[in-house]
């Protein structure tokens, strides 16, 4: 006969054995196991915990008083639910990322275009010079054309050439001085030539005769000067167009 082990006896005592009926039958038949089980029963029945001291009805309130100070109220679920929607969180994160990328791009572009903006006063000055120079050359060209035509057609010239020549003479001196640092010999030579022509016209008698004009044309080579002015106008107009294109590109 196989006796019950100590573990089986303990399981039987706590009614946790799988084969309760078989164990019971064995204890009925086996005096050895029955005696061991009886001793175990005596032992465990005498093992009793001390009875807990009584607590009054207000004990729960006392416990609550002692802990409530260290407890923070929960936020209501309606408030917390905003933070529980993962989709909303992802969307917000994407928007933030896009806004950040856009701003970073703008800042980068601004930082990289800063040097060109730093030269803006110089460029602006050049653009103004080119604009007024183009205008000056245009007026000078018209004066020279009128001068050439007048010399070829009429005996007496009744045109305000002298007044225009005096005005252009003053302007021409300023432009000639302004373009000196640019070290452009062609332009400098043309303006110098033009100044001499204008000076001659401006200082001529009040009414220029065709002969006077013809003399000026011949001596001052106004036909050649007109050609030079036209070439310069083309060049100056091209430079002005390039300057405008550069300015637009920098501000995009």
């Amino acid at each position, binding site marked *: 006969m196989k006796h019950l082990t*100590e*573990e089986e006896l*303990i*399981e039987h005592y*706590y009614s*946790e054995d799988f084969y309760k009926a078989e164990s019971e039958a064995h204890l009925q038949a086996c005096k050895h196991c029955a005696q061991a089980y009886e*001793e*175990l029963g*005596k*032992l*465990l029945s*005498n*093992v*009793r*915990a*001390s009875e*807990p*001291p009584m*607590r009054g009805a207000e*004990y*729960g*309130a006392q*416990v*609550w008083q*002692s*802990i*409530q100070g*260290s*407890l*923070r*109220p*929960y*936020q*209501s*679920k309606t408030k917390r639910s905003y933070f529980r929607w993962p989709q909303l969180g992802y969307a917000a994160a994407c928007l933030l990322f896009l806004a950040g990328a856009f701003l970073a791009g703008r800042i980068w572009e601004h930082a990289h275009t800063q040097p060109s903006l730093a030269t803006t006063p110089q460029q602006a000055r050049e653009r103004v010079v080119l604009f007024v120079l183009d205008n000056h050359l245009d007026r000078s060209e018209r004066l020279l054309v009128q001068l050439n035509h007048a010399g070829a057609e009429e005996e007496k010239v009744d045109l305000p050439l002298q007044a225009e020549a005096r005005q252009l003479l003053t302007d021409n001196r300023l432009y000639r001085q302004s373009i000196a640092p640019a070290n452009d010999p062609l332009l400098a030579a043309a303006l110098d030539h033009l100044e001499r022509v204008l000076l001659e016209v401006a200082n001529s008698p009040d009414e220029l005769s065709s002969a006077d004009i013809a003399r000026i044309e011949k001596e001052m080579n106004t036909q050649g000067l007109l050609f030079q002015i036209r070439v310069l106008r083309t060049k100056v107009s091209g430079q002005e167009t390039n300057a405008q294109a550069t300015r637009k590109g920098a501000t995009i």
Partner: protein
Amino acid sequence: MGNEDHALIRTVLAGEKDAYGLLVARHSQSVFRVAFRITENEADAEEIVQEAFLRGYRKLESFDARASFRTWIYRIAVNCALDVLNKRKHQAAVPIAEEHDGEQGTVQPADGAAGPDRLLLSQEIEARRQTAMEKLTPTERLAFVLRHMEDRSTEEIATALGIAPNSAKQAVFRAVQKLRQSLAPLWVKS
């Protein structure tokens, strides 16, 4: 009771902290009882009650609405008690003078009604029981108290202690064996 507990928990989670006070008032007695049975110390038991309800409040969001709050807070209290026993185990050493030698301690129990001899035996048993309980590991002691005094099943013990059912069963066996070794001499000559 369970539905009322769940309603109170929802109220607490909605921001009404004071509703938790009602849960504390409702379950503090039972938590104190099990805490005292485990520790057999009134001050420790009160500390466990407070700590259990504190932990319970902080973990309330993780409470499964399908469970019973009573069982849930009970498990938390058992874990708090385990912490106290572990701390006590490290701090205190069993005085040598209180150790009982098996042969010397053999007591002849008296038969019949309670008399001076019987009273003496009860005192002796209680002293030895307490000493034997102190010798158990925290897990063994908890498992034994829950099995023997709280009449909890092996499954419930395992859940409360966070261990496998077989480990819980073995812990109860080892506790009974140790108690038997300490207390059996009292009945040897009976």
